[in-house]
């Protein structure tokens, strides 16, 4: 009986703690959605209302009138481009680090991570000057290239950890079956490592989707600006227009959410499989 009571108390506290954590995680999203559906007076009203007295879609209409779809499309192009280029650049070095021995391998692998030790803001000025000198300032391509030094190293390191878990016998079987090294990689290794690739892809997509500092610094004209820059328009020096800001934020959450829902089984498998050896 004593053990049962203690077990019950422990269970209660566990559930209570989990509930509090869940509330802390979910509440901001709940607040974001409900606020985006409130009228302006209700948003600024005191005391606060936790459920809209009157529902309105005016803020969604407002961001639609401000050509939100255009910024959305730019975000898709920039984030998609960052994801694909990071993977394209990082895939083969990651495999090489996992399979081959060569002089300077460890220092080279460590140097790949050097960028990760510094905040992105430290490199903003040199990156800005480089893009300006090459005529890539104020372009989507320029922003993608600016993101690559921050996404590619983690791509390499994470994928290397994943490749290490792939048994060497798989490659040897492919070689014996008549594959060249390239064929062996793309016909056998690449399909097997799709979970890890999907996980890294999601990470780079999400990183570039929500990044603000470089986006605001590099993208000047409306034609090339993306969602973070668009949303920053609603944050003024003296006032923040919460309604359209939250409406835009909610809509901008949807693509990463859809991607994650579609690829989540790869993401979970990729995270756990890549963490076995490193």
């Amino acid at each position, binding site marked *: 009986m004593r053990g049962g009571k203690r077990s019950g108390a422990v269970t209660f506290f566990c559930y209570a703690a989990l509930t509090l954590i869940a509330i802390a995680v979910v509440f901001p999203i709940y607040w974001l959605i409900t606020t985006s559906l409130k009228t302006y007076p209700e948003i600024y009203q005191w005391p606060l209302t936790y459920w809209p007295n009157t529902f309105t879609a005016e803020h969604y209409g407002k961001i639609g009138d401000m050509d939100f779809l255009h910024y959305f499309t730019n975000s898709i192009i920039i984030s998609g481009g960052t994801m694909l280029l990071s993977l394209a650049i990082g895939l083969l070095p990651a495999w090489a680090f996992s399979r081959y021995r060569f002089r300077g391998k460890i220092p080279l692998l460590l140097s790949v991570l050097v960028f990760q030790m510094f905040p992105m803001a430290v490199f903003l000025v040199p990156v800005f000057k480089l893009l300006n000198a090459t005529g890539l300032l104020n372009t989507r391509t320029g922003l993608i290239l600016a993101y690559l030094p921050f996404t590619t190293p983690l791509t390499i390191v994470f994928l290397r950890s994943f490749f290490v878990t792939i048994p060497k016998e798989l490659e040897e*079987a492919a070689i*014996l*079956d008549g594959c060249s090294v390239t064929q062996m990689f793309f016909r056998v290794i690449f399909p*097997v490592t799709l979970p890890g690739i999907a996980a890294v892809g999601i990470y780079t997509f999400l990183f570039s989707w929500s990044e603000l500092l470089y986006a605001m610094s590099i993208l000047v004209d409306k034609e090339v600006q993306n969602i973070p820059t668009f949303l920053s328009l609603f944050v003024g020096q003296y006032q923040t227009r919460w309604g359209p800001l939250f409406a835009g934020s909610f809509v901008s959450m949807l693509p990463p959410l859809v991607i994650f829902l579609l690829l989540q089984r790869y993401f979970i498998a990729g995270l756990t499989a890549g963490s076995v050896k490193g």
Partner: protein
Amino acid sequence: MNDNIKELRPHLSLREIVKSFGPFEVLHGIDLDIGKGEFVVLVGPSGCGKSTLLRLISGLEEISGGELFLDGKRINDTTPSQRGMAMVFQSYALYPHMTVAQNMGFALRMAKAPKAEIDVRVNEVAQILQLEPLLERKPKQLSGGQRQRVAIGRALVRDPSVFLFDEPLSNLDAELRVQMRVEIARLHQKLKTTMIYVTHDQVEAMTLADRIVVMQNGYVEQVGTPLELYHQPANVFVAQFIGSPKMNLMESRVVEASSRETVVGLPSGQQITLPVTRDDIRAGAPVKIGIRPEDIAVGANGGGRIDLKVDVAECLGGTTYLYGENESGERMVVEADGGDRTAPNTMVPLSVDPALCHLFSEDGQSFFRLESALSR
């Protein structure tokens, strides 16, 4: 087993094969001829170089020195896929994203064979190995034994001239291992293809092989048929590696040596005459007497006598193993009848037939036996 081994011409020849990893030489001048259709087993403890030798034959590792010939043609520089060999790995190495049928047909697809031909060949092999109901499954949906059969099937579809097996049964449980061993033996009888099989399990070696190659530390200790290795081990290592439980060894000295026989003393002090000889041995030389547990009789039945103080008796039903110490304090094991109920701390008299005893010199090499146990 193949009774015409001596008449086989070499299908595969290894000449002074050396393998080094950096400054470390792991294979030291291996010479071996393998006949067409022969089932050769490379056996030895972990780290002896047997898998490395197999990988050199397959082409997955580069040969550091020496030459490798297949049907008389030097293949040191031939790519693995062009050697006409197929390998079955210990971990199966099945492609997890492909179905069983796709796994089996992969090599033919890489060779750009027509789809119809691939389908015919895959179905033929699936029939042989009873894989037909599994063709559309992925490897993760198969049991260990099924995966192993698919791995064999994938090798079989390629119609290789040499099959290479790298400890294929190590990942299976004991019962499945026995079943698969029989299947591999049946496959060899049916196909009569040259097979080179690596294992650390001497039971697999004894039951499957036409000839066994016993290896240690990168050297070949002895090559012979299972019974040759059992009855005429070349040295202490082979004598103790082949046979389970392993051969008993007793320290002794030569009392008298002639060109036909050697007299040695047992731990009891009794002298026995063994039908073995060696040119360079003189009276007084230290030797080791070897006798297998199954060649010792419990009871004083004539022949040489040893008294064993039993401390453990393992009853396995059909057999009982008695473990203990002889008069010299040396550990010994004896195979007794299944009904034997010897209690611990009992002194048990043992009889040894001199004809079944082996003798090894101080350097571990076997004495020459004039009359082979094989010919009895």
